[in-house]
């Protein structure tokens, strides 16, 4: 097991290298000369003279080949320096760190909500298969898979902020600000978890060891929860991990709608202002989180099912 996990951990830097190389190349193909943009920022309203731009390009090392620039960027990134924002001139690392708590709060609340809603509802739907309860759960799961977070966000604002005045429409602050963005962001994942835990539990309930557990005279609740659910949990853990990545992606849209000062909004603002170093940094940061979460999922997976032999699995 440790062997597998160690090898798995080793692939993380390789994947990060790949992701950063792709985004770096892309951003360097993008139109707009960073030297020109920076000079305009430093002297607002002044058309930078051609020679100044060229000199500044040399100073920034922008005329070096792509490979040189990438290794320089990588070296700095490894030292914890992700460069300077074109827009504010401030170091990106600290700007990112400033916005991180808001995003983690939103993503964490959404993940918790999705797990607490989706998994119990899925279990109930499976245990009472064919009942009105099951039908309700199916409807909810379909709705969650169908209504995108941006439509749900607007509907929530319309209902609870504009019409009922119960919650603030936008902004960042107490728990009242958190409710709507968290619900909007969690709906899709909750629906997915509900479908999966239902299907997975139903599949498990037909296994031989379930019959054995019942034959031993265990109470039905113990049979379902201890023997059934623990085994049904495996695919649910995987989807939760993958869902975490999608939460971070979805947070980009939800944060923009609710004016939530997180990393997602930072990225969207940067995209519109062509603040490429920031875009590059955010993509890298998301990749790190995503890969680490995936790694964590693998560890949990292994702990849940010691039978698994990862040696034969590619990754």
């Amino acid at each position, binding site marked *: 097991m440790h062997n597998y996990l160690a090898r798995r951990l080793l692939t993380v830097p390789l994947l990060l290298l790949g992701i950063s190389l792709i985004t770096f190349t892309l951003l360097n193909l993008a139109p707009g000369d960073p030297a020109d943009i920076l000079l305009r920022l430093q002297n607002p309203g002044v058309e930078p003279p051609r020679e100044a731009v060229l000199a500044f390009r040399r100073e920034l090392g922008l005329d070096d080949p792509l490979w040189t620039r990438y290794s320089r960027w990588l070296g700095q990134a490894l030292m914890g320096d992700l460069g300077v924002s074109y827009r504010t001139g401030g170091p990106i690392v600290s700007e990112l760190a400033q916005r991180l708590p808001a995003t983690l709060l939103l993503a964490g609340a959404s993940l918790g909500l999705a797990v607490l809603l989706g998994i119990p509802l899925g279990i109930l739907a499976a245990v009472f*298969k064919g009942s009105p309860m099951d039908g309700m759960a199916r409807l909810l799961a379909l709705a969650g898979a169908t209504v995108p977070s*941006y439509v749900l966000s607007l509907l929530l604002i319309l209902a609870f902020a504009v019409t009922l005045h119960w919650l603030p429409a936008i902004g960042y602050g107490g728990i009242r600000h958190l409710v709507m963005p968290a619900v909007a962001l969690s709906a899709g994942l909750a629906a997915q978890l509900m479908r999966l835990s239902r299907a997975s539990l139903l599949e498990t309930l037909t296994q031989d060891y379930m019959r054995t557990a019942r034959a031993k005279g265990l109470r039905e609740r113990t049979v379902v929860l201890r023997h059934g659910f623990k085994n049904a949990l495996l695919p649910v853990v995987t989807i939760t991990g993958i869902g975490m990545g999608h939460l971070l992606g979805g947070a980009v849209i939800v944060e923009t709608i609710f004016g939530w000062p997180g990393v997602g909004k930072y990225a969207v603002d940067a995209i519109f202002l062509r603040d490429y170093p920031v875009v590059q940094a955010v993509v890298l940061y998301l990749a790190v989180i995503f890969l680490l979460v995936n790694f964590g999922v693998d560890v949990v997976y292994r702990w849940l099912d010691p039978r698994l032999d990862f040696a034969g699995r590619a990754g």
Partner: protein
Amino acid sequence: MPQPLQRFLRDPSALLGLAIITVAAAAALLAPLLAPQGPTLVDLERRLASPDRHFWLGADHLGRDVLSRVLYGARTTLGAAGLTLSVIMVIAVLVGILAGYHGGWLDTMLMALADLLLAFPALVLALAIAGTLGPSLLNVMMAVALVWWAGYARLIRGMVLSVRQREFVEAARAVGAGDWRIMVHHVLRNILGPMVVLVTLDMGLIILGLSGLSFLGLGSQPPTPEWGAMLNDGRPFLQSAPRLMLYPGAAICLVVLGFNLLGDGLRDLLDPTVVHGWKSPRRPG
């Protein structure tokens, strides 16, 4: 009547899905005939006008007819999603067959690239690419296609590997069929069933992705009618005219619902491993 078709006709939710998609496709194709007026015709006198007998859904903040924009929006949204999916399929089929049939270093490299893309949330990467290329519908479509092919390519490669060993492929080779002919005629035909299910379910996801990026302002640009962009246009009028955002929002949800229902029905039909009625969700990759 063949049995699967009968089963399909007895599945009310799949039929509902098919009906929704048919209506949406008809709206897209017949938009010029159905729309009361041009989708970009500005009439400031009718700014935010309420629905009436002639203009059933009222007018938007520039006095443009909302019904016409929703109908033409079906064109943009469905057309863009369909085109994107076609590009994805072309890339995926080429990569999948090349990797599966050629094997060796080419296989290793292509699949490493696919894993790299699969290891990352598609929307974030698409956002970064679209942001780099600059806001436009075509750029967003390219961005989505570039990050979406990997799952299909893996699937096709896996099937190529398993089909390659089967007798009918050897038989085809024995009678002198070339590699390419074998791939197209024998391999692709055998993976058609699972692909149809995946493609139907993915249409919904791609529509959500494209509209989401357009909602952010990265995709479709004004005055082109597109549902995600219309939703964004309606945001400032959430209080005074919520219908501006309700209609395009409902349109997106309906079409996605249609593809989800149809996809689920087709999976029941084509995939014998489905358990107990309402299906396990697709596992990524």
